[in-house]
């Protein structure tokens, strides 16, 4: 699909800059977006990608520089302006109205009308349903958005962008929460949009996606523009080198560890309507991956193990001692830690400072005579932030200001600082750049080497295959397969995860 070398760009970013107080998030960045072409924007966490996105969305005004549409400079004062200018944005974090129906979420402010400017609900639901069929998912358009899994939320976001049929479509890590099947569908859609003449800006930390989808790539580092080239003139290694600023050491640094005794035992764990009769064991030093399609119920399982979700039946044992259900505190005392799937909702208190977030799990031990006095917290937080190489300007800044990846590091710091015996990580590298990814992976294998039992929920097959000693596959709330490292391959896992015929 070699479309002719395009002429004038549909949208052009011209040497824009943006700083937040002391932090200069973006400096002198320029790149063109051509119609009928998908353009990749890559960079480490905190490189400034989302900030650019927010400028295109009319959320941030550039401190300097301009954004040009059809060669004309445009002032985007508000999201409304951006929409009016035909720019649709899929944000890094889903932005839905939990109380409203999925269909209304898609068409808010643009609902199809019938006589007397009244909303035509039938038409609205029908069109929403049509978009879902196009995306190949069956979400009831009339169901409230509350309770959708992150993946389903992301899909609704995509449907929203489709419904805008905009000329410029910006996707900030749309695939972070998706698994193979959905990603394939998303790509099909993106492809048809491209063919329709739209210009797409695509942000992702997964290079296989970028090389598969994009024709041109802009690389950023620390807020500055590094380069913009056609994709086929760059190797992945070159891209990585440019964005990280150094050659990357292996992505999956797996030590071979001889597993120790069983630490975590889960037996017949059941929660009506979500998952049933889940049993597995994890030994000290082992990394066990929970694979499966999104919505398989993996998060629910680990959350029930940790006790944030209730369990209807079944038992969880740590070091042979049975764990009281529904009590995270008990789990923590037993040495279990859970790095949750949704960092903004479950992992962090976004308005609270980085320091407060990191220390939140350790206050008891940081207190003297029950009182939190002196600089103990500060020192502790600074130490752990440093160990995970978190990028921040002040420990007292609200953690919400950090870039996605750095937020994830804070969550990891918060839990690793509890020195757990059993570490459960749910989508540990979601939205994390290659550099950090390698860090996290090294971290996990080091922890395993130190005898920590690790359960890893991940929707990224390479990660699962690269890191796990054993792979447990879930489908529709049931444990359907257990594959030792040797037998775990792309095919075997997908086959188990999707069941007959659905082998992706």
């Amino acid at each position, binding site marked *: 699909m070699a479309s002719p070398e395009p002429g004038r760009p549909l949208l052009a970013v011209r040497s824009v800059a943006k700083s937040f107080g002391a932090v200069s998030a973006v400096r002198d960045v320029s790149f063109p977006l051509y119609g009928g072409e998908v353009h990749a924007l890559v960079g480490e966490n905190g490189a400034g990608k989302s900030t650019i996105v927010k400028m295109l969305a009319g959320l941030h005004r550039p401190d300097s520089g301009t954004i040009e549409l059809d060669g004309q400079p445009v002032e985007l004062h508000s999201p409304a302006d951006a929409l009016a200018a035909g720019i649709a944005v899929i944000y890094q974090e889903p932005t839905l109205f939990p109380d409203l129906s999925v269909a209304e979420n898609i068409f808010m402010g643009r609902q199809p009308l019938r006589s007397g400017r009244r909303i035509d609900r039938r038409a609205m639901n029908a069109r929403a349903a*049509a978009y879902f069929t196009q995306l190949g998912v069956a979400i009831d358009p009339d169901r409230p958005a509350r309770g959708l899994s992150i993946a389903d939320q992301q899909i609704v976001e995509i449907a929203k962008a489709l419904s805008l049929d905009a000329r410029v479509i910006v996707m900030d890590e749309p695939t972070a929460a998706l698994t193979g099947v959905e990603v394939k569908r998303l790509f099909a859609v993106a492809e048809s949009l491209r063919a329709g003449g739209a210009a797409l800006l695509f942000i992702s930390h997964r290079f296989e996606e970028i090389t598969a989808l994009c024709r041109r790539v802009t690389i950023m580092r620390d807020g500055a523009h590094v380069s913009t080239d056609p994709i086929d003139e760059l190797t992945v290694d070159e891209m990585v080198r440019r964005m990280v600023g150094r050659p990357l050491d292996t992505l999956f640094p797996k030590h071979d560890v001889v597993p120790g005794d069983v630490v975590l035992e889960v037996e017949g764990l059941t929660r009506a309507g979500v998952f049933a009769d889940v049993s597995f064991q994890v030994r000290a030093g082992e990394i066990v991956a929970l694979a499966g399609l999104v919505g398989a119920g993996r998060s629910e399982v680990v959350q029930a193990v940790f006790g944030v979700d209730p369990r209807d039946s079944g038992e969880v044992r740590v070091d042979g001692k049975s764990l009281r259900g529904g009590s995270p505190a008990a789990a923590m005392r037993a040495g279990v830690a859970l790095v949750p799937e949704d960092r903004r909702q479950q992992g962090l208190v976004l308005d609270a400072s980085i320091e407060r977030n990191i220390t939140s799990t350790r206050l008891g031990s940081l207190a003297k005579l029950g009182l939190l006095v002196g600089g103990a917290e500060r020192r502790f937080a600074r130490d752990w932030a440093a160990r995970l190489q978190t990028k921040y300007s002040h420990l007292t800044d609200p953690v919400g200001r950090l870039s996605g990846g750095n937020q994830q590091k804070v969550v990891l710091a918060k839990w690793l600082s509890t020195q757990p015996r059993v570490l459960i990580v749910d989508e540990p590298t979601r939205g994390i750049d290659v550099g950090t990814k390698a860090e996290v992976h090294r971290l996990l294998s080091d922890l395993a080497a130190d005898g920590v039992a690790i359960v890893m929920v991940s929707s990224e097959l390479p990660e699962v295959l690269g890191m796990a000693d054993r792979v447990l596959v879930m489908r529709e709330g049931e444990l359907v397969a257990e594959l030792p490292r040797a037998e775990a391959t792309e095919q075997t896992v997908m086959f188990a995860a999707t069941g007959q015929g659905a082998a992706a």
Partner: protein
Amino acid sequence: MTTAPPTSTGPAPSVEHDKAAESRVGLILRARELGIVLALAALVVVTAVVNPRFLSGQSIRDLVLAAAIIVVLAVGQAVVVITRNIDLSVGSVLGLSAFAVGSLLQAAPGVPVVVALLVGLAFGAVCGLVNGVLVRFGNVPALVVTLGTLYVYRGIGFFWAGGQQINADKLPPGFLAFGTAGVLGVPWLIIIALVVVLVAGLYLRTYRSGRELYAMGSNPEAARLAGIPVGRRTLAAFVVSGALAGLAGVLFAARFGTIDASAGTGMELNVVAAVVVGGVAVFGGSGTIWGAAIGALLLTTIGSALPVLGIDQFWQQAIVGALILLAIGTDRVVAARIAASLRRRESHVVS
């Protein structure tokens, strides 16, 4: 554009979605208002059994007349609450507008009722505007702003009225008649209340800007991203609530004939209670105007049923409180049932 999906010939899945849709909508509607309607019915039946006169024309008339005022207030309150705000100043606004209209009519008895109504509306709208501006531009939480203006408006009222009380004999008979008379036996107050409920209810359910109010309440940040003019809508919501409070003030004056500076004191809590009992979520995003109206009706019915039931004076308030708890309790139970049903019918990638 290949992306524009066929809308007319809805593909297979969308059809079955529509069926699901119907059932779901029905379920939720029933869920939200069912509890209250039942409570209301039960109350009326019991009272009527104990004392048939409760269903006499006169008494029903008195009941709905009393309800009309609080219903109007509840509608305004619902609009504000749905946007994740609250308006505690309604009681004071009512008092202020009642007194304003009262003294207007006292000064110029010739003024037609319609004008009086409009004056009340306008007066309330201005008070609402002040609230709205403070919330919107000062970004002060609505609870704080309106708690403040609750004091301020009341204080202004006292300044203005002093000890003066406007008695029935000072008000033009035409206006007082408006408080009780009506067309074909249906009192004006009730007609007005019904119109308010219908218009507001329809608007919030079937108009884009109406739905945007829900969106704002459900997730303010997302509302901004969706390009909804959050500021303007907030402002509008408060103006509406204020205006309706003003209108209620006029109705109050017409109904009770005696107006002093303390008219409507403490009403704000009843109104909020009515809205909450009516199934409007305190933190916005969900609930209906109908619900709020029924909630208001229920509370008023309790108020006038208890004396009829000959229940000891001192029990009344206690029972009202208990019923509020009961109402929101049942509402929650039903809501939980829905959530459960949602969890079960989860989406899965079709393969």
